[in-house]
C-alpha cells in the first residue's frame, strides 16, 4: 500500500511532538536544577503551541481556552513555585545518578524505541490521526519514568512527574481533543493542587534533611 504524503496538520503535530520528546531528553542530561525547571517551562510552551495548532485546524474554540490556562499554569506558575523553592534551598546541582549521563540517554533511547514499536503494534489506522505523535507521547511518558527513577533528588523527581503530565497532554490533544472543556480544566486544577502538595512535601523534606537528595530516604523497607 503506497503511503500518502502527510498533511500539513500531521506534519506540524509530529514536529511539535518531537520537540517535546527532545526537551525530555535534554532534561535527562541537564546537571543544574534551574536549567531543568527552565526546560520544563519550555516544554510546556511547546505543548501550548500544539494546543493552538489543534484548535486552529480542527476549529475547536474550547481548546484556545485550554491553551491559555495551560500557558498560565505550566509555563508561568509551576516553574515559579519550583524556582522559589530552589532559591530558598540554595542547592543548584541535581542529585547524582547511579548511571552516567550517556547510559541514561541510552536507556531513554531504548524506551523510546519500545514506545514506537508498542504503539505501532496497536494498528491504529485512522486518517485523521497522527499516530506518530501518539507514539512520541508514550515515549515522553517512558523517558519521564527514566528521569524519575534514575535521578536522586526531589526536584528532579517532581519535575519528572510534571513533564510526564506534558506527555499525557500531547496524547490528549492528539487523540482526545474533543474532551469536554470542564474535564480538561479539572485536569489542570488537579495539576495545580499536585504542584502545591509537591512543594509542601519538598519543603518538609528540605527542612528535615537540609538537602534535596533522596539518598537518605532508605530507612523504611521490608
Amino acid at each position, binding site marked *: 500500500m503506497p503511503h500518502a504524503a502527510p498533511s500539513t496538520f500531521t506534519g506540524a503535530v509530529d514536529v511539535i511532538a518531537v520537540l517535546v520528546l527532545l526537551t525530555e531528553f535534554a532534561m535527562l542530561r541537564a546537571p543544574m536544577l534551574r536549567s531543568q525547571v527552565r526546560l520544563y517551562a519550555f516544554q510546556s510552551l511547546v505543548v501550548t503551541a500544539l494546543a493552538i495548532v489543534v484548535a486552529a485546524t480542527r476549529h475547536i474554540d474550547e481548546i484556545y481556552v485550554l491553551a491559555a490556562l495551560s500557558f498560565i499554569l505550566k509555563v508561568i506558575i509551576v516553574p515559579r513555585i519550583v524556582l522559589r523553592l530552589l532559591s530558598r534551598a540554595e542547592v543548584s546541582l541535581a542529585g547524582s545518578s547511579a548511571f552516567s549521563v550517556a547510559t541514561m540517554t541510552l536507556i531513554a533511547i531504548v524506551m523510546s524505541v519500545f514506545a514506537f514499536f508498542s504503539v505501532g503494534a496497536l494498528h491504529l489506522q485512522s486518517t485523521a490521526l497522527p499516530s506518530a505523535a501518539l507514539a512520541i507521547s508514550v515515549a515522553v511518558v517512558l523517558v519521564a519514568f527514566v528521569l524519575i527513577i534514575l535521578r536522586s533528588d526531589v526536584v528532579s523527581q517532581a519535575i519528572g512527574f510534571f513533564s510526564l503530565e506534558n506527555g499525557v497532554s500531547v496524547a*490528549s490533544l492528539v487523540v482526545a481533543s474533543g474532551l469536554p472543556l470542564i474535564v480538561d480544566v479539572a485536569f489542570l486544577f488537579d495539576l495545580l*493542587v499536585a504542584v502545591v502538595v*509537591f512543594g509542601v512535601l519538598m519543603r518538609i523534606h528540605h527542612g528535615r534533611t537540609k538537602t534535596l537528595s533522596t539518598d537518605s*530516604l532508605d530507612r523504611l523497607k521490608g
Partner: protein
Amino acid sequence: MNHVLLAIVIVPVVTSIATWWTPPAISKVVTIGSGIALFLLALALIPSATAHSYLAVGSVLRVDALSVVFLVPTTFLYATTSIFAAGYLHLPEGEAGRRYARRFFVGLNVFCWSMAVAPLVNGLALLWVMIEVTTVISALLVAIDDTDGATEAAWKYVILASLGLGIALFATIIMYYAGTRFFGSSYDPSYNKLLSGAHAFPKDVVRLADVLAVLGFGTKMGLVPVHTWLPDAHSEAPTPISALLSGALLATSFYAILRFFQVSVRCLGPAFPRNVLLIFGLASLVLAAFYLLSQRDLKRLLAYSSVEHMGILAIGMSFSAPLAIVGVLLHVIAHGAAKGTAFFGAGSVARKFKSKDMARIRGGVGLLPWSGPMLVLAVLALSAMPPFGIFRSEFLIVAGGLSDPRDAIAAVLVVFVTVAFFGLSWFTTKTMLSPVPERERLRLGRGETSWLIVVAMAVGLVGLVILGVHVPGQLNELLQHAASQLEVAR
C-alpha cells in the same frame, strides 16, 4: 433522592470549612457528627439505588448500586475513624496543638469528602480527577506528624502514586479515544454513554486502556508489583489516617478499576479483563502472604494484610460465577470495617506501649482490658474467622471459584489465605495473648488510654458480626444488583 446525593457532597465541605475555625474540642465533635450523618445518608441511598438502574443529578453526579456499595464502607470508616481520632489524638498544649488539630481535621474531612464523592461522579475522566485529589490530600496527611519516617513515606507515596495515576490518566485518554471511533470526535465520556457504545469500540485500543488502568489505579490499590509505597505510608501515617488509607482509599481505587472492567467486558468479553486482574491478584496474594510472616512492625503487618486482601478482591473478580462477584463486593465492605477496627486496636496498643515494634509489645490483652481482646477479634476477622463478615465474603468468593472451570485458583487462594492467617495470628498471639511481664505492669498499668477508641472498635466489630451472621435484606439486594451490573450483558 437527589437531595440526599447533594447532601453527601456538601456536608463534608461545610465541616472542613468549620473545622478551620473551631477549637480542637469542637472540631472533634463536628467531625464525628459529619461522619455519622454521611453514613446515614449513604444508607438512605440503598433502597433507591437498588430500585433504579441509576440516579443522576445534572451531568456530573450519577449513582448506581455499584457506587453505593463503595460509598457505604467509606462513610462507615469516616464515622468510626472520627470517633477513634477524637480519643486517639494527644494534642500538645497551646498554639502548636491548635495548629496541628486544624491541619488534621481539615485534612481528614477533605480526604473523606474526596473518597465519598469519587464513586458519585459520572464518567472516567471525573473519576480520575477525584482519585488524584484523594492522593494529594492523603499524602499531606501522611506527612503531618513531621518525623523522618513520615517524610520519607509521604514522598515515596506521592511520587509512586502520581506515576500510577499518570498511567491511569493515559488509560482514561485511550478509553476516550476508543469511544471517538463510535461517537465521533467530541462526546461526554459518561458511564451510560461508554457502556452503551462499548460493544463497537476497537478491541486493541480497549485492551490497552484496560491493562494501563489496572496498572495505574492498581498502584494506588496496592497490587503487586506496584505496591511498594503502601507498607511505608500505611505504617508511618497517624493511625486514624492509616485506617482510612487501608480501609477506604484502596477500595476507592478498586472501584476505578471496576469501572474500566465494566466497559472492557462489554467490548472484549470477560476473558481478557478477568485474566489481567487474575495475574495482579495472584501476585499480590502470594507475595503479601509471605511478607506477613516476617513483619516486626504492627502497622506494617496490617498494611501487608491489606495487600493480601486487595489480591483476594482482584482474584475474586476473575471468577465467572455471579456468586463470586457478590462475594467480592461484600468483601469490600467487610474488609473496610475489619481493617479499620484492626488499625484502631493497633493505635490503642501503640499509645499504650509507645511503640509499634512487636518485639517490645507483650501482654496486650492483660494491659488493655477492652481494646486488647477486640484487636485480637479484629485480626481473627481479617483472617476470615466466623462469625465475622470476611468469613462470609471469602466463603462466597471461594464457592464461586470452585464452580469456575479454573477451580484450581480457588484452591491456591485458600492455601495462601491460610499462610496469611499464620502470619497474622502468630504475631498477635505473641504480642497480645502473652502473659504481662511484671515490669510492664508496674510501668504502664492496666487500663484503656481512651474510651472513645473502645467505642470505635466496638462499632466496627458489631458491623462485622452483622455482615457475618445475617446480611440485612436491603444490603443483600444492593450487592446482588451491583454484581449484576458488573456481569457480562450478552
